[in-house]
């Protein structure tokens, strides 16, 4: 992707301070020489005058052009970024010096980050400056703009700025490794890998019944047929796909993100976990939908397959927390939008009481809900390890804000206890809450939810 320079055609080259110094000193020395009859002062002015004349006898009329090229603007986390800044001189004299500055998002770690690049460009030439770096966090990041200035005439003239517009670099999140067992509360799709309760072609034996029209001959159970002297067939439960709805709670962000090589914040955990869960179920043929529980209230329709997985990664790039914790209205994110057969996996840090209320609403409406706690375990441990009024070194390294005020650490512990109380209440109301641990961390709760799904219960519409 290339972005070229944009500039105002009326801007001109301007003299530098050195130009003013040259004019001042030449004039001063000649005037003083005239009044004091000192020819040696003329000799002192000579090199400055000669240098200025040599530099200015041909002045630049054009201006430099800057281009920013990115080899591949779609990367994954830890992907290598390669770009090139080219400076073009369309004038008929040399640019003694060109200084180009490249801005970059903090999550694009550029070698020589923040340093300007200095080069010289001959007449009618273009010079390329290779840029390399690495993307360290998911999201949409800007590389650029590039701002370049040229200097000519022995440092006496400086050009107007040449600017190349920034390039949007998309960095897809790393998918957290995730696997789960086949347990699904209600697989009611068409064809898939989950055991359902509907009869049909599948691997789970449902029973033996009398042979009827349309039954396949290879399903005949000969032992029972010989015993009863009537043809009987083994009936099976069909394997169907399921619908999974992944809901990301982005009301608040917590923890400090250090990119892929550092600590994970709540959003980092949520996005990477969502990508991992989506990757697993989509490639098994299940339909996965995504909902953002935040100020945008975005939704991604359910679908399966690799193409939908790529669409999901693109959708996850725009996940952003609300500035003031505003929740979306019920019309945007409500139980009426979620099928009763689907499994809801809610990725939430459980910071805001609104999140707990949302979970309870979905559970009361009869949806199968699993809450995955995305709060960084290190942050919770730092708060747990704090003695009231004192904060250990380890705790302060993770949560430096514990140092602020005499009662901050005590308030943090109180908040921690209240949060745990909320989680326990949710569990009592049938919403399992489990910490995110990647592969296999949801197996137990999936079994639990599947067992609860097969039990009869009253629901409120």
């Amino acid at each position: 992707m290339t972005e070229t320079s944009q500039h105002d055609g009326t801007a001109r080259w301007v003299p530098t301070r050195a130009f003013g110094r040259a004019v001042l000193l030449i004039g001063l020395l000649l005037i003083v020489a005239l009044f004091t009859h000192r020819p040696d002062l003329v000799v002192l002015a000579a090199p400055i005058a000669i240098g200025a004349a040599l530099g200015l006898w041909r002045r630049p009329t054009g201006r430099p052009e800057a281009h920013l090229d990115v080899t591949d603007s779609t990367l994954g986390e830890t992907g290598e970024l390669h770009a090139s800044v080219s400076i073009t001189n369309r004038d008929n004299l040399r640019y003694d010096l060109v200084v180009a500055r490249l801005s970059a998002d903090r999550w694009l770690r550029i070698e020589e980050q923040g340093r300007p690049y200095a080069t010289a460009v001959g007449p009618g030439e273009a010079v390329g400056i290779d840029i390399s770096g690495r993307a360290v966090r998911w999201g949409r990041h800007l590389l650029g703009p590039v701002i370049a200035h040229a200097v000519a005439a022995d440092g006496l003239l400086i050009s107007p700025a040449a600017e190349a517009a920034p390039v949007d670099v998309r960095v897809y999140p790393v998918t957290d490794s995730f696997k789960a067992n086949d347990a699904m509360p209600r697989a009611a799709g068409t064809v898939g890998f989950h055991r359902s309760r509907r009869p049909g072609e599948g691997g789970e034996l449902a029973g033996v019944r009398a042979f009827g029209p349309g039954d396949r001959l290879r399903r005949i159970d000969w032992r029972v047929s010989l015993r009863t002297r009537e043809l009987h067939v083994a009936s099976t439960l069909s394997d169907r796909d399921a619908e999974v709805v992944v809901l990301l709670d982005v009301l608040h962000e917590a923890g400090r993100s250090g990119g892929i090589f550092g600590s994970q914040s709540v959003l980092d955990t949520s996005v990477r976990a969502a990508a991992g869960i989506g990757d697993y179920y989509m490639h098994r043929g299940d339909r996965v939908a995504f909902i953002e529980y935040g100020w945008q209230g975005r939704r991604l329709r359910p679908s399966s397959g690799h193409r939908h997985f790529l669409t999901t990664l693109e959708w996850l790039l725009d996940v952003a927390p609300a500035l003031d914790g505003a929740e979306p209205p019920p019309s945007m994110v409500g139980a009426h939008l979620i099928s009763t057969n689907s499994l809801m996996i809610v990725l939430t840090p459980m910071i805001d009481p609104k999140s707990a209320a949302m979970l309870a609403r979905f559970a009361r409406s009869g949806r199968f809900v699993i809450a995955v706690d995305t709060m960084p375990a290190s942050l919770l441990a730092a708060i747990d390890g704090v003695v009231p009024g004192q904060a250990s070194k380890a705790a302060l390294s993770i949560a430096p804000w514990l140092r602020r005020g005499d009662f901050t650490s005590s308030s943090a512990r109180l908040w921690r206890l209240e949060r745990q109380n909320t989680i326990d209440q949710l569990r009592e109301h049938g919403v399992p809450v489990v910490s995110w641990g990647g592969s296999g961390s949801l197996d137990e709760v999936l079994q639990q939810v599947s067992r609860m799904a097969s039990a009869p219960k009253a629901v409120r519409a």
Partner: protein
Amino acid sequence: MSMVLESVRGRGRALKRDIKRAQPAAMIIRLVVMLAASAALLLAYPPVIGLQVLIFLPALFPRSFLPTLFMVITIWFWLVSADVDPTRLSIWRVAGLAIALYLVHVGCALAAVLPYDAVVSPGIFTPWIVRAAVVSVLTLGMSELVFAVRTFVGLTPQYLYATIAGLVLTVTIAIFLLYLGKRRQ
């Protein structure tokens, strides 16, 4: 008081960060400015303890008015010392002072536009060095001419006007030589 201390500490941290980021090429330019400034002071005035501290003005603040101030001060010192001791008016001292002041001027011009932490492509200083060498040679030639004529003609007002005319002629010759060089390319 604590705000002042915090401000001083902040400046100290910023200075430490700047020193760490500084690149050799930019530092060499400033070192050249310091050496040229030191040579100019020594040629302009007999050595005085503490005077050399002035060489830091153009090297550390090339974008400000301080290089101009330094050059004016140095010229003033030269005026005074040559008036007091006319034997200091020798061809090598005048030419040396002119070239040293020119190197301070052009070194500050380059240091002003080259950021201290810039990543520099190799070979970008070659044209600057060549140009400075050409100007130095022409200055030497002109000072030889000025002193040679002075020896024959003597120190008269007409001689001064002739010197200024000689400067104009030197500049014209330099431009013509540059024009011939460009035509050959």
